């Protein structure tokens, strides 16, 4: 790759790349997102490569196999999209590849059985599938379309056009004004206005001349969240371009991306993207002959959730123990190496080029006032359609779960949705019309957070859910301040008691009071938001807490000390599946006759219930 020396050359290069494309040439986009990879998508890709090598395809239809980032519809993976046929195949196995090559690529016909079908309808194109139809892919527009390891692909899709625009025709002041006018808010969780943060940093840098920095926060650690990962893996250049634009606005020459070590693929893709951008002269000194110098370095987090908190992240970047420090001073005032630093989530950074390209007015038109733009969510839990979605802000929770997520399989309603990861709140079905925007979510006691969305059904117990999130945070607490270090453990003691049917209604109120003390008294946002699952579940599901402590029952049939499994003799057909699956060997009965469970030996694992074909196993 040769260095591109100026903007004209870059545009010419981009045009040449586009002109060299044959619009007739079939393109197979194999999703190599985390979900599809886990389901063997790399083998599908290899099968395509070898099918082509084996010359099973005629030269005239020699297809291009693209290994792309996440397509989003994880529950149907491995996924492939085929152009120019506009076909969308789901659950593709390596064994299906030959048929796809022979039928679709060679003859242009459809392999019907690989199409997505739902409620009796088959969908040929991804754009018709209800899961995608409701979405608005803006930030993710290239994720799943381009090969993230080829900068040429990103350039053809328009990457670095916003950077050239700011470098050639905008002053740093204009860039900040544009981001301010767009109303972009931080995608990492707290939702601080990005433009305001930038302005604050610029003012501090002016008062106190010297080096300044931009940082991309890719330390996504919420259980069940994979938005940032998908973005960094699927379109790393969007993050780099956003950071370069921010660096230009701030006057920074050095950027850092902090990625957790558990995301090796994101680190690899970002590293390759940085190398390629450097080789082309889109990072480095005198970028495109504009006199602007900027480079990016990747720093790997060593596995601490709290390092996603910006002050802890800076400490970790500097090589110190990753513990937060009280704000103010904010990083925009005194950040990395004591210098003004802009830290934004990688998703926030990826929004920036779009704002520059299409203008603040266009961006502010997306979403709702005060929460503009779109948001990426990872939609997981008890849902028909799980995966990664991008929707305009302000869409209601119910629409996300029911229309995009397809609702809970076999049940007419969901029980609750946990937004914002372990630090978020549990929003009940009754509030399904809550718009998903920063302010509405905080009104109901939850947070936007980084965008995890965990859907629960009637077999999820809120006490158990609160225990789960709390045990995660308890392990991740850095232990610097007392309310968080001891408080999370103490709240867990309360919940452990409830799960055993012990305690009193007064204990529930005391737990609420303790949760409030931790929320108010903690040093950083980890402790400050950790009580959210408890505060919201106590608020919306107090009857369930009472059922545990007063009636000693777990209405959802989860808390093991409070439940008993039994078999309904009227439904049981004596098939013996439960007998074969019971790890305790405590189910017995004659063949074709109703079986019984020995409650004394039963460990309440629920295996029998999961395997019973006639739903005869009951829990109470």
């Amino acid at each position: 790759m040769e260095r591109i020396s100026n903007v004209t050359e870059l545009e010419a290069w981009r045009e040449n790349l586009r002109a060299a494309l044959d619009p007739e040439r079939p393109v197979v986009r194999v999703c190599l997102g985390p979900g599809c990879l886990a389901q063997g998508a790399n083998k599908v890709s290899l099968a395509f490569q070898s099918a082509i090598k084996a010359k099973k395809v005629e030269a005239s239809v020699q297809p291009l196999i693209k290994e792309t980032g996440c397509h989003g519809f994880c529950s149907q993976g491995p996924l492939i999209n085929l152009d120019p046929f506009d076909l969308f195949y789901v659950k593709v196995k390596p064994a299906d590849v030959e048929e796809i090559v022979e039928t679709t690529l060679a003859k242009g016909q459809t392999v019907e059985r690989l199409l997505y079908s739902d409620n009796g309808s088959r969908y040929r194109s991804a754009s018709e599938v209800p899961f995608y139809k409701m979405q608005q892919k803006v930030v993710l527009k290239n994720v799943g379309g381009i090969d993230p390891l080829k900068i040429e692909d990103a350039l053809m899709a328009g990457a670095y056009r916003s950077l050239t625009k700011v470098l050639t025709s905008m002053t740093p002041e204009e860039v900040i004004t544009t981001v301010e006018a767009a109303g972009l808010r931080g995608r990492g969780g707290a939702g601080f206005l990005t433009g305001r943060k930038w302005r604050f940093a610029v003012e501090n840098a002016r008062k106190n001349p010297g080096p300044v920095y931009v940082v991309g926060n890719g330390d996504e650690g919420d259980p069940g969240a994979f938005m940032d990962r998908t973005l960094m893996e699927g379109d790393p250049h969007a993050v780099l371009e956003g950071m370069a634009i921010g660096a230009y606005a701030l006057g920074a020459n050095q950027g850092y991306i902090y990625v957790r070590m558990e995301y090796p693929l994101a680190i690899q893709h970002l590293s390759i993207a940085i190398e390629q951008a450097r080789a082309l002269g889109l990072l480095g000194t005198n970028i495109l002959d504009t006199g602007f110098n900027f480079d990016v370095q990747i720093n790997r987090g060593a596995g601490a959730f709290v390092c996603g908190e910006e002050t802890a992240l800076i400490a970790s970047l500097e090589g110190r123990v990753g513990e937060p420090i009280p704000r103010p001073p904010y990083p925009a005032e005194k950040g990395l190496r004591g210098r003004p630093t802009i830290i934004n989530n990688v998703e926030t950074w990826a929004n920036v080029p779009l704002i520059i390209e299409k203008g603040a007015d266009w961006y502010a038109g997306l979403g709702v006032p005060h929460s503009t733009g779109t948001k990426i969510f990872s939609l997981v839990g008890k849902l028909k359609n799980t995966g990664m979605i991008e929707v305009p802000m302000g869409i209601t929770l119910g629409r996300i779960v029911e229309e995009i997520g397809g609702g809970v399989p076999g049940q007419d309603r969901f029980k609750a949705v946990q937004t914002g990861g372990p630090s978020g709140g549990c929003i009940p079905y009754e509030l399904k019309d809550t718009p998903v925007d920063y302010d509405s979510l905080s009104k109901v006691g939850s947070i936007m957070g980084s965008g995890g969305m965990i859907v629960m059904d009637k077999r999820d117990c809120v006490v158990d859910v609160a225990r789960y999130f709390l045990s995660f945070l308890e392990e991740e607490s850095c232990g610097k301040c007392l309310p968080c270090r001891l408080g999370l453990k103490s709240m867990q003691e309360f919940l452990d008691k409830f799960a055993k049917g012990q305690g009193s209604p007064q204990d529930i109120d005391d737990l609420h009071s303790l949760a409030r003390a931790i929320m108010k008294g903690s040093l950083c946002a980890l402790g400050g938001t950790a009580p959210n699952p408890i505060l919201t579940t106590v608020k919306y599901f107090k009857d369930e807490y009472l059922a545990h402590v007063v009636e000693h029952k777990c209405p959802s049939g989860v808390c093991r000390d409070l439940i008993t499994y039994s078999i309904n003799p009227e439904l049981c057909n004596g098939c013996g599946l439960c007998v074969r699956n019971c790890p305790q060997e405590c189910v017995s009965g004659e063949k074709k006759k109703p079986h019984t469970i020995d409650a004394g030996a039963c460990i309440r694992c629920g295996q029998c219930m999961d395997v019973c074909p006639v739903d005869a196993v009951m829990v109470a």
Partner: protein
Amino acid sequence: MSAKKGKKGKKEKDQDLISFTINGQGVQARDGWTILETARQHGVQIPTLCFHPAVQPMGSCRLCVVEIQQNGRSRVAASCITPVQKDVEVLTHSEEVQNVRRWVLEMLLANCPASRQIRQLAKEHGVTSTRFKVEHPEDACARCGLCTRACDEVVGVRGISLGNRGIFKEVTAPYHQRSTVCIRCGTCLYVCPTGAMEQLFPQVSAP
């Protein structure tokens, strides 16, 4: 410095003073002071554990929390690390503040049960028993890090530090070995607010 200049300097300084209220009482502070410093200057009592004027405040124990009201908004912050701000109203004993203190003290009773000082402090705030599990009856350390900060900032030795994280946090020397750089000056013993260092000292310092 001439008399005239000195007078002008004083006038400038007076203008620099920051006025706000603590529990309704008007107070003035120099720029850069913390709320805790200002409160103590004006005789207002705020309990602390991890604070010592000789070292940098860390805001760990959260006993010094106060409620800060400004423009109809209210927040709770640790007064030892919160700089003074013009025109705010500080409440040192509001319900929200007392709620934090009482819970912190009750949790401390369970987590450093061997500390006489903690029991005394808790008693002063009406907390005499704890409902939480006592796992280590011999433990007296609140992990406030005052000893490690004193060792670093006052003695300049860094013989001890805080190791591990979360509920496993502990005062220790590097690699869990007894510190060979320790000069056995006893500063940590002197500043320790819970008396835990008396037990810990022989474990972290090489003879």
